[in-house]
């Protein structure tokens, strides 16, 4: 967690030291400390930087907050990572920090974790960096959990905006979706984490606060209906607004994702979400080796760690391949409709155009892309 703190304070520090102006603050915070810098006031163009560190102070020609995301100089983060990583690789560091009995595997693990420590925010990574981190994560999954996983970084398809509709006349409260979600997304079994909540509501009541999500009896119960919630992938997501480090953002296809390796665990997003959609890992998530879903996405269901926030991503690892989210596929009643909002022939558009729909807490203006409808 120390690094997480460093990441946060570093961006802040840049502002305090005049390294970034207040107007640049947002940009700096979003990009973390990838701009590098030595902590000294920004030198005038042409002047030499007075820093003496071996890191990548970006000098005068590359003002922070101004560089493009694609053309990147070597950053402080990369430089430190490479330096110490190199030391590790030559085993000088490893020999001093690890016991003589340390196996090659453990040494490899230490090195990989060190390199992971210094990687960038996912949005700032080049394709090569993405490929490298994925390779490391796959190897670490094997070393840590003895599972062969395949992690993808599939991007959003152009012309796609995902939307979801939920038929409250059809849902019977069987919770098959919850079960499928847990398995698909490698949710922590120890804490019993679940992204989806199915609320049992009394007929005639629409206040979801009065719903009971912990019902434990044969369903459907007489005089009740069922209303499912999960992340609604808001078009105006408050969780993204409040994130101080830019670890969560909205993708072009509308999915709000989390970079689990950038999250500092402050839980602001969890507090900001009016739909209780975000979950926090209070402990190291545990998934039995035999039950790990190996089809993973960097921004989706890959292994999370203690102290980070996670959430439903409409099964980004499936939906970006044209498949349905696990919950929609598992639903035995057909209450869940998923599709592309930009495709006028899609089922979701049919629902929006032909059925009476409403959204939860619409007055808040979060513009959730999740509609409820009735027969």
């Amino acid at each position, binding site marked *: 967690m120390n690094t997480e703190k460093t990441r946060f304070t570093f961006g802040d520090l840049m502002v305090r030291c005049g390294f970034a102006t207040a107007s640049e603050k947002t940009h700096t915070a979003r990009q973390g400390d990838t701009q590098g810098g030595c902590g000294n006031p920004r030198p005038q163009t042409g002047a030499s930087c007075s820093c003496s560190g071996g890191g990548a102070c970006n000098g005068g020609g590359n003002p922070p907050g101004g560089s493009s995301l694609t053309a990147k100089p070597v950053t402080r983060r990369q430089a430190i990572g490479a330096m110490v990583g190199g030391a590790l690789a030559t085993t000088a560091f490893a020999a001093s920090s690890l016991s003589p009995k340390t196996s090659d595997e453990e040494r490899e693990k230490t090195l990989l974790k060190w390199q992971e420590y210094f990687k960038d925010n996912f949005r700032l990574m080049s394709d090569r960096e993405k490929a490298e981190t994925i390779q490391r994560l796959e190897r670490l999954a094997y070393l840590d959990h003895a599972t062969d996983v395949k992690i993808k970084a599939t991007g959003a398809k152009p012309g796609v905006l995902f939307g979801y*509709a939920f*038929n409250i*006349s*059809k849902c*019977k*409260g*069987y*919770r*098959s979706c*919850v*079960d499928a979600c*847990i398995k698909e997304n490698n949710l922590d079994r120890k*804490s*019993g984490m*679940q992204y989806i*909540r*199915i609320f049992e509501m009394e*007929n005639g009541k629409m206040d979801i606060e009065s719903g009971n*999500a*912990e*019902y*434990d*009896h*044969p*369903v*459907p119960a007489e005089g009740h*209906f069922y209303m499912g919630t999960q992340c609604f992938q808001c078009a105006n997501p408050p969780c993204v607004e409040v994130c101080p480090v830019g670890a969560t953002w909205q993708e072009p296809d509308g999915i709000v994702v989390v970079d689990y390796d950038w999250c500092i665990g402050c839980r602001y997003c969890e507090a900001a979400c009016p739909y209780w959609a975000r979950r926090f890992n209070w402990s190291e998530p545990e998934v039995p080796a035999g039950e790990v879903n190996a089809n993973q996405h960097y921004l989706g269901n890959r292994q999370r760690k203690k102290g980070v926030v996670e959430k439903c991503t409409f099964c980004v690892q499936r*939906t970006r*391949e*044209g*498949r*349905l989210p696990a919950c929609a596929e598992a*639903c*035995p*009643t*057909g209450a869940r*409709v*998923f*599709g*592309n909002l930009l495709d006028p*022939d*899609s*089922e*979701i558009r*049919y*629902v929006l155009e*032909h*059925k009476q729909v409403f959204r939860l807490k619409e007055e808040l203006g979060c513009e959730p892309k999740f509609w409820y*409808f009735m*027969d």
Partner: protein
Amino acid sequence: MNVIRLSILMIVVPGAVCLTACRKDTSGPTATADPPVSFEVDPAERNALKTTPHDPVVGFDHVQSKPFFVTRRTAKITQFPCAVCHETPLTAPAPAEVVNRGMHVDIDLHHADSATMSCATCHNYADLSGLRLLGGDIIPFDASYRLCSQCHFEQAQDWAGGAHGKRLAGWQGKRVVMNCADCHNPHAPALGSHWPVQKPEIP
């Protein structure tokens, strides 16, 4: 919360004597004069569909919307083709006790009342391998959704558009949906109650 009820009736009476051989193929003379449009399912899609626990699909015509695919029904009827037993046409409906004692002991009718429908409302006595629409057209079992949509037209409209029923394989590409009888037992269409899967541990 209304449970959708479908109007297929599939009671087939055992022990009848056949006069002519029934066909498994329903595209013969007994098939409807206006047969459903058929679409080729390309091999890639067929492969993609193998990931679902359902049979490859056949293409059918649309009900009110754009053309889409429906799962094959005949592959799931365990005693199909009916002609294995029913070699001859039926002349009259069999009494309930005959049905319940015979090969169709699992069929328990909880659909519309007896004043509204009998076995013959849906089943074609002349050739049991097909179903009969109210207007007299004969359709194959794979197109049984047309039978249901005669009464349940509102549900059929939603189903054709996508607000009812289940889509298979994915949200992209050709639309493949489940047939009515994949979810609803046509003889007892209401979905039952059972225990939910997991109780959440909400902190």
